[in-house]
């Protein structure tokens, strides 16, 4: 069992595309059977310390972190959807359950799906989630790691 800090670091490493657990070291653009892995955005809630810690960890790996300011709807329309229209992104987050519920519906309208949704056992009503237009290998690995570490 690893602690939360180690977990966040592991997530950051995976998202950076350096390592897929159980597999050899890979370059960022080699993840996903040779296909280019889409860039990732991490959504966090600045009011929640665990969410902020998660965002800090992954942003160290060069992932763009965006804060929800308590309204993912506004975030979606002002930042996420315009970014997705320019370049397909993978979205991840550790946010309140209501946020992923809303994002799931908004993403569906944009042709994307939630590929993972894991309640955090240790962080109140927080949910770890990932959204993409398709499941990719790094995402699958991340999902497995989250399942091991976050589910009670």
């Amino acid at each position: 069992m690893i602690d939360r800090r180690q977990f966040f670091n592991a997530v950051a490493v995976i998202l950076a595309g350096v390592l897929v657990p159980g597999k050899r070291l890979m370059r960022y653009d080699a993840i996903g059977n040779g296909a280019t892995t889409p860039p990732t955005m991490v959504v966090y809630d600045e009011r929640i310390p665990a969410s902020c810690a998660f965002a800090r960890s992954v942003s160290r790996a060069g992932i763009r972190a965006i804060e929800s300011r308590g309204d993912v709807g506004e975030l979606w329309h002002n930042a996420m959807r315009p970014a997705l229209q320019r370049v397909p992104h993978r979205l991840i987050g550790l946010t309140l359950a209501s946020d992923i519920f809303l994002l799931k519906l908004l993403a569906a309208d944009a042709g994307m799906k939630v590929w993972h949704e894991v309640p955090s056992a240790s962080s109140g009503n927080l949910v770890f989630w990932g959204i993409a237009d398709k499941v990719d290998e790094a995402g699958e690995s991340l999902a497995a790691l989250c399942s091991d570490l976050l589910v009670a």
Partner: protein
Amino acid sequence: MSRILPPGFSEREFEAALQRFSAVIGKPHVITTAADLESYLDPFAPGNAAAYAAAAVRPASTEQVQAIVRIAQELRIPLWTVSTGKNLAYGGAAPRLKGCVVLDLKRMNHVIEVNEELGYALVEPGVSYFDLYAYIRQQGYKLWIDPPAPGWGSVVGNTLERGFGYTPYGDHSAMQCGMEVVLANGELVRTGMGAMAGSSMWQLYKPGYGASYDGMFMQSNFGIVTKLGIWLMPQPESFLLCHARFRQEADLEMIVDTLRPLRLDGTIQNNAVIEGAVRWAAGISNRERWYEGDGAMPQVAIERMIRQLDIGWWTLRFALYGRKEVVDLNYRIARKALEKIPGADISVKRYASDTVPAVEPSAAGDKGQAGIPGLAVFQMLNWRGGNGAHIDFSPVCPATGRDAMKQYRMVKTRAGEYGFDYYGGFTAGLRHLYHIFAAIFDRGDVHQAEQAGELLRVLVEDAGKQGYAEYRSHLEYMDLVAAQYDFNDHALMRLSERIKDALDPAGILSPGKQGVWPASLRGKKT
């Protein structure tokens, strides 16, 4: 699981029908798989969400809507129309009748016109408040929209459902001007001045000439609205957002009686909101912080929550708009009146409109009063933890303190009996209040969800006995709410049924909406 089919259809017959729909709109826009049809389940069903949609079709133009309606008319396929289907507390995009094909208009998402000089927009049903807001900002028009609390809804859908927002243009159905409607036979009609082919006044003068029909297509199943005009408020020179906190539960009566004259004489121009303590607290905390026992939060826990969060039993939000000197004068008048309520604590923030993009009000409820759409209201889903959901009880209430207090006591008491907190408040029209109570439940807890559903049913009946009724309702209660409108042995319903039979004899348009069923199903469905 067997496939859901329209009433009386075999699989083969329905497949043939779907092929005809595909020929009109293209196969990708005919939705048939169980996975894709999940978006047409009621997301906040009070109990298990039953699958009712046989398929969904997503046209991109009025002409495609006409073609679909003609096919449905010929084959007797019931259609359930949704604009964007985001009205979650009232059933989302789910149909009432099992076997309906959902006519989903979200691809019709064009802002056809915004006229800055005359202050209006003409939009299609797939345009959300977020979309219209972004369009106006991008074009630099000095106009405001009036979003409802969740801003992802359709401008057309919310207006047709008589939704409301929080600026002086908050009565959406009153701000509607001109419609384009596809009738059940596929014919296209434009209302008001739109009935004149060469008129430039479709969005300027609502009545036109002769009988006026716009209201007939609101909360109804008499036609499909494919374009709608909505008036937009000119950007005010300045505005002021005010919060007034009140310390006692019993203050509600005096708040309403103080607010009413200020609304009637125009001192307060917008739909002011009186929020209960739980509703305010749910935006900044969750329930388990205050109470972890069974049942509704006890009074002592609510009082502790109010003290520790330093919030009011009731908080009044209102805004003032216009030239600075007028705003200042109206504020002094409103403040003087509200200060007569013992313990009133009034705070205010001023804004100049030309700084709006840079200096926006941050609190969720404040944004609506500044014409800015958002979804922060859904923070309420975290109140009870788990997979939060809510269904709403929305009676209209005379704008008097005694009626508001009577409804509040009635709803709070019943909610408590069923284990729910009073999450609610009153939004002030001129002579009426919209009393909105949300039963918040965990979708993962079947018992809790069913209790929420039963509570809603009892509340509709309780209110009916007191002469109160809802202005809109969840799908599940449409017949029950319609039944409360019982003057002269339900004469209004009989009129609606005669109109339905005349305009839609095959009964293909949204069967059961607001309790109006086609003749073939009348009396069979309750």
